[in-house]
């Protein structure tokens, strides 16, 4: 005879199989460090705070010789287009097996897009090869530093920098004649030498790319301290959801983040929001003490927005509400490139 006690007993036995917490805490430290490093390069590339950490333990050799492990969703986000066309300019002609494009970032300064970044990754794994095209002074604080090695990238001198210890990152900078600066960054589970080989091989395969991407969203109003600073537009995905993120940092360091998409994480955040709010025809929630807004648009797309208090703006919530009231979301992005090479 089985009853609820038998099932409970089975679950209790299952719980007893839980891994030891000491070991998890040790590996958590390593994975958190890798995650932080990944976030560092994402910030450098302007991708903001959307890194998903899903570490996959594998050596480079193993990864390069195994069948594709990547899993990219087929996303039906929107038609694409917008008010600013951005040429993709370059792409690598060779990438490790299973790598696909997972993220695109544009830095918008006024009506120009001086920087574009593209990330290729093995599915949602916490490894990435990024190509940053162009440069902007706002990126200077994150410029990789270290003892450089000069390498040859198809006849052009390149500057190779290795950073990190247990979870190294490799940065390779070069500038083809008459072209913007290119920065290839490699963050994988490989050892440093393998990363450098990978960076060089991918960099040497870089070719012109005639395709374009678009900037769809646009600010209708911003507070004075944010009105003239460059901002970042990031397109990516989490699980089977597309995400579009707009982020900027003011001179005093205060940050504005507007995140759009169908992400489950947004629904999760919504669960814990507090006060109802209605902005234009959109219903949602606000968390005034955290300066956060959660909205669900009529087409089901969810929006998360957050603004730090700033100088002369200790009550940032009304400011954030006005920013969103006058924000133009634009057409939702075409995300059909996710997983492409």
């Amino acid at each position, binding site marked *: 005879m*089985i009853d609820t006690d038998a*099932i*409970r007993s089975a*679950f209790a036995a299952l719980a007893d199989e839980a891994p030891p*917490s000491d070991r998890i805490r040790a590996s*958590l430290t390593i994975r*958190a460090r890798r995650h932080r490093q990944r976030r560092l390069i994402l910030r450098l590339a302007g991708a903001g705070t959307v890194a*998903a950490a*899903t570490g996959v333990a594998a050596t480079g050799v193993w990864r390069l010789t195994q069948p594709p492990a990547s899993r990219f969703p087929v996303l039906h986000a929107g038609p694409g287009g917008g008010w600013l066309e951005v040429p993709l300019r370059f792409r690598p002609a060779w990438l490790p097996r299973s790598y696909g494009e997972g993220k695109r970032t544009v830095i918008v300064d006024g009506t120009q897009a001086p920087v574009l970044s593209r990330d290729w990754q093995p599915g949602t794994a916490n490894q990435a090869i990024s190509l940053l095209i162009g440069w902007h002074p706002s990126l200077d604080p994150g410029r990789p530093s270290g003892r450089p090695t000069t390498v040859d990238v198809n006849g052009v001198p390149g500057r190779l920098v290795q950073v990190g210890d247990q979870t190294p990152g490799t940065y390779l900078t070069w500038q083809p004649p008459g072209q913007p600066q290119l920065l290839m960054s490699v963050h994988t589970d490989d050892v440093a030498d393998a990363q450098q080989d990978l960076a060089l091989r991918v960099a040497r395969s870089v070719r012109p790319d005639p395709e374009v991407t678009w900037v769809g969203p646009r600010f209708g109003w911003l507070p004075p301290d944010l009105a003239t600073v460059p901002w970042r537009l990031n397109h990516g995905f989490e*699980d089977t959801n597309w995400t579009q993120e707009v982020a900027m940092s003011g001179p005093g360091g205060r940050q504005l983040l507007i995140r759009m998409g169908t992400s489950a994480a947004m629904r999760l955040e919504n669960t814990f929001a507090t006060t109802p709010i209605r902005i234009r025809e959109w219903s949602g929630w606000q968390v005034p003490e955290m300066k956060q807004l959660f909205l669900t648009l009529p087409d089901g797309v969810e929006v998360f927005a957050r603004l730090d208090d700033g100088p002369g703006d200790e009550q940032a919530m009304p400011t954030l509400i006005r920013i969103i009231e006058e924000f133009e979301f634009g057409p939702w992005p075409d995300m059909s490139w996710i997983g492409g090479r």
Partner: protein
Amino acid sequence: MIFEEYVAARLPALLRQATVLAGDPHVAEDVVQDVLIKAQPRWARISELDVPDAYLRKMIVNELLSARRRVAAALRRERVQWPAPAQDGVDVVVRREAILQVIRTLPVRQRLVIALRFYEDMTDGDIAALLGCTEGTVRSQASRALAKLREIAALQPVRED
């Protein structure tokens, strides 16, 4: 409570909970690490909640329901050999192992529902809220899971006492 203090105090419980929900300690380990890494940057806000445990449980459930995890779970299910039906009078331990084997191989949503119902003692309403579905869906998932327990392990109907 800062993040490190929370992890020090609650990690063992989180791991037990995740192991039950995942049906696999290795998956639980991976999920808990992913969840904690994602939670750390938002910890200032999470820690202000009355029940940060519930927030993290929701994150664990979401992670288990993600497409990537579901694919991996499906592959694991294909590799698992179903147990032979238990005979009357079989030893309690053997019977528990048979039940466990079935629990491990249930589809994720079915396992989540019966784990939350029988291990966490949650009501169907609370489970529905956590999983983002209706109570009817919870009941039907539970019914399917229990039917599989009866079918595979040749168990008699569960007595709801």
